[in-house]
C-alpha cells in the first residue's frame, strides 16, 4: 500500500544519505522523495511516498527514521486530511493546428502552457497525483516528448476532521 510519510530533519550534510541508505538497507520501496526548507532556518522537511506491505512494515519505517539523530519528527499523514501537491512539466508534440485543441484539454486542469516552440509546447500542471495522471493520459495521444515530475510534497490541513480511527503507531509506548 502507498503511504505518505513526512520527516522534519536538521539540515545537515549527509542526512539525506542516511535516510535513503536506511530505506535501501531495509528494503523500503521509495516511489518519490522531495526535500526542501521549512519556515525555520536549518530545518528541512522531506516527503516520501513509499510502497509498503502491512502496518508492521510502515511502523518499522517510522521507527527507523525516528532513530536517526538528525530526524526531529516523522509522521504518516496518509490517513489525515492533507494538502498534497505535485508539479509536472510535460513537453507535448504540437504544431500550430492542434495548439488550440490542446488548450482545451489543459484549461479544465488549470494547467498552463509555459513554453511554446514550432514543434512542441510545454505544459505545467500542479495538483495531487491523480490529477497529474489524468492529464498525462489525455496528452499521451498527442505524443509526450519529455516529462518530469517533482514527486509529491504534503502537510496536514489547518483543521482536521474529528476522526477517531486515526492510525496511531506506538513510538513511545
Amino acid at each position, binding site marked *: 500500500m502507498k503511504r505518505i510519510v513526512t520527516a522534519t*530533519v*536538521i539540515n545537515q*550534510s*549527509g542526512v539525506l*544519505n*542516511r535516510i535513503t*541508505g*536506511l530505506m535501501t*538497507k531495509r528494503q523500503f520501496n521509495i516511489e518519490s522523495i522531495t526535500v526542501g526548507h521549512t519556515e525555520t532556518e536549518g530545518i528541512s522537511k522531506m516527503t516520501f511516498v513509499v510502497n509498503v506491505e502491512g502496518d*508492521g512494515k510502515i*511502523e*518499522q519505517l517510522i*521507527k*527507523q527514521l*525516528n*532513530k*536517526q*539523530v*538528525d*530526524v*526531529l519528527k516523522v509522521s504518516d499523514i496518509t490517513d489525515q486530511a492533507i494538502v498534497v501537491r505535485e508539479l509536472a512539466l510535460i513537453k507535448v508534440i504540437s504544431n500550430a493546428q492542434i495548439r488550440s485543441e490542446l488548450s482545451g484539454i489543459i484549461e479544465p486542469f488549470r494547467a498552463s502552457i509555459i513554453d511554446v516552440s514550432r514543434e512542441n509546447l510545454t505544459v505545467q500542471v500542479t495538483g495531487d497525483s491523480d490529477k497529474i495522471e489524468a492529464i498525462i493520459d489525455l496528452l499521451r495521444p498527442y505524443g509526450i516528448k519529455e516529462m518530469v515530475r517533482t514527486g509529491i510534497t504534503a502537510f496536514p490541513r489547518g483543521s482536521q476532521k474529528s476522526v477517531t480511527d486515526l492510525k496511531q503507531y*506506538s*513510538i*513511545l*509506548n
Partner: protein
Amino acid sequence: MRAKARNEAEAVTMEMTGADILIDSLKKENVEVLFGYPGGAVLPIYDALYRSPIKHILSKHEQGSIHAAEGYARVSGKPGVVIATSGPGATNLVTGITDAMMDSLPIVIFTGQVASNVIGTDAFQEADVMGITSPITKHNYQVRDVKDLPRIIKEAFHIASTGRPGPVLVDIPKDVSNKKVAPVEDFKVNLPGYQPTFSPNVLQIKKLADAIGTAQKPVILAGAGVLHATAGKDLLAFSEKHQIPVVNTLLGLGSYPGNHPLFLGMGGMHGTYTANMALYECDLLISIGARFDDRLTGNLDHFARNAVVAHIDVDPAEIGKNIPTQIPIVSDAREALKSLLDVETRTPETDEWRKQLTEKSEQYPLWYKTHTEEFLPQRVIELVHKHTKGDAIITTDVGQHQMWAAQYYSFTDPNKWVTSGGLGTMGFGFPAAIGAQLAFPEQTVVSLTGDGGFQMTLQELSVLQELNLPVKVVIVNNQSLGMVRQWQEAFYEQRYSQSLIPIQPDFVKLGEAYGIKAYQVHTEEEAEAVFSEAFSHRDPVLIDCRVSASENVYPMIAPGKGLHEMIGVKP
C-alpha cells in the same frame, strides 16, 4: 597599554590546534586508552598525542584496533576509542564498526580525512568515509570547522554511550586538525532529534504486572540490554521474587548466574533443549534487552506461539520488528525491572511449569561423547573453566568453539563474556581480548579462538609482546573451519569444500617468534599440565590445543526449523 599587550599575548598562546583540542576533549571524557594506527591524515593528531599522557595501543592492523576497542567497551561499559587515518585506515575499520553496531557497543572512532580543499578530488588516501559508514554507525560527523570540534566530540561520546549504545564516527580533515583557534568552551550540546526514552510507561508496566499475575508458564528472555543497563541484580531479584525461569541470549550470557536453579541456559540454534522448549511452550514471554535475532528464534511460525509477548527494549524500533508484541515497553532494562519490582504484582503459580522444565533439563542436558580417547573441544572449554575457577573474562571468535564456550563455560558474573554475536566476525576474539585485558589488567583474560579465526588477526600478538599483556590464547584447533565443515556434513552430503585445513602453521614457533611462551597439546593430560602452568603466572601464553576434528555442535536447530525441532538432543 602594557596590560592590553599582555592580554593579547595570552590570547595568542591560548590558541590550540584542532588536534590538541581533540586530545584535550578526550581527557575531559576520561579516556584512558586509545586504540589506533597512525598515517598521513592523522599526523597532527599523533603529534598532539606525543605531548599527551593518554595511553595509545598501536595495533598491527586497524581491524585489531577496533576489535580491541570493542573488547574494552564490552567488559568496562566505557566507550572504546579508536583513531585511524584516512582512506585505507578508515576502510580497515569497517568490519569492526559494523560489528559494534550489531552488538550495540559504545565506540567512538576518529578518522583522519584529506584536507578540506581536496575532498572530492579522489586525493591520495581519500575515501568517502561518511558515505561508507552511514549505514554502520549510530551517527557520524565530518568536522568542517575546527570551532565545532569540542561540541562534536562531546555529542559523539554522548550518542555512543546513551540509549542503545553504538559506534559514532568523527571524520576530521587534516587542515582542521592543523588549524589553530582559541577553543570554544561554552558550546552547547543540542540534539533535539536524539532523546532516548529511559523510564518505562507506568501503564505498560501495570499491564505486564497483570499478565505476570495470571501467567502459568512465564519465561524471561534476557539479552545484552540487561548488561548494558547493569541490571543483573534487578533481574535476579525480579525472577526470584516471582519464580520465573530465565533464558539468556548468546550475548546476554552473564546477565544471570549460570548456576542458578531458575536458569535454563542459552536459547537459540545451539541453546539448551530446555531453554528452547520453554520459549516454545511459554504463555508469557518477557524479553528484556534482546532483539529476537533469527539465530535465537528459529522459524518464527513456531516461536512462542501461544505466548503473550512483553518486550522491554531501550530501542523502540526493536519492538515489533520480528515478533508481534502485546506489551511494548520502551525503557532502560534496569528502570523497567525496578518499576516491575515496585509495582504490586500477584506472584504466578509456576510450580508445575518449573517442575516440567526441571524434568526436561535432567532428561536432556548438554552432552558430548564421554567414552572416547579423543581430545574433545568441549573438554578444552571445561578445563579452561576449571583452571580459571569460572572467573575469567572469555573472548571468542565465531564458530564451533564459540558455541561450545557459550554452552560449557558457565558464566556467573556479568561482563566477562566477549563474543561477536550479531555480525559473527571471525578474527574478533583475539584483539577483543587485548582490549578486555587493558580494561582490567588484574583479571585473567582468555582468548578462546579457532585455528581459522585466529589466523585472521594473529598479527596482534605483537601487542602482547610489547606490553607483556597476560592474555592466554587458547586455540581450539580442529584443523578445519569447524562450523562450515559441520554444515557441509549435515546439509551438503559431506562435500567439505574449502573447510579442511590440514596444513597448519607451527603455532608454537609463531608464538615464540613474538616472544610468547607457546605450547601444543594433544591430550587432556597434556592440557591439564600446560593449563596449570599457564594460568599460574602473569605472562602471555599461547596454547595450541589439537582437538578432534570431527566433533559437531549439538543440540541444534536446523535452518528453517522451529524451536521444538532440535536435533542431537540426546547421544
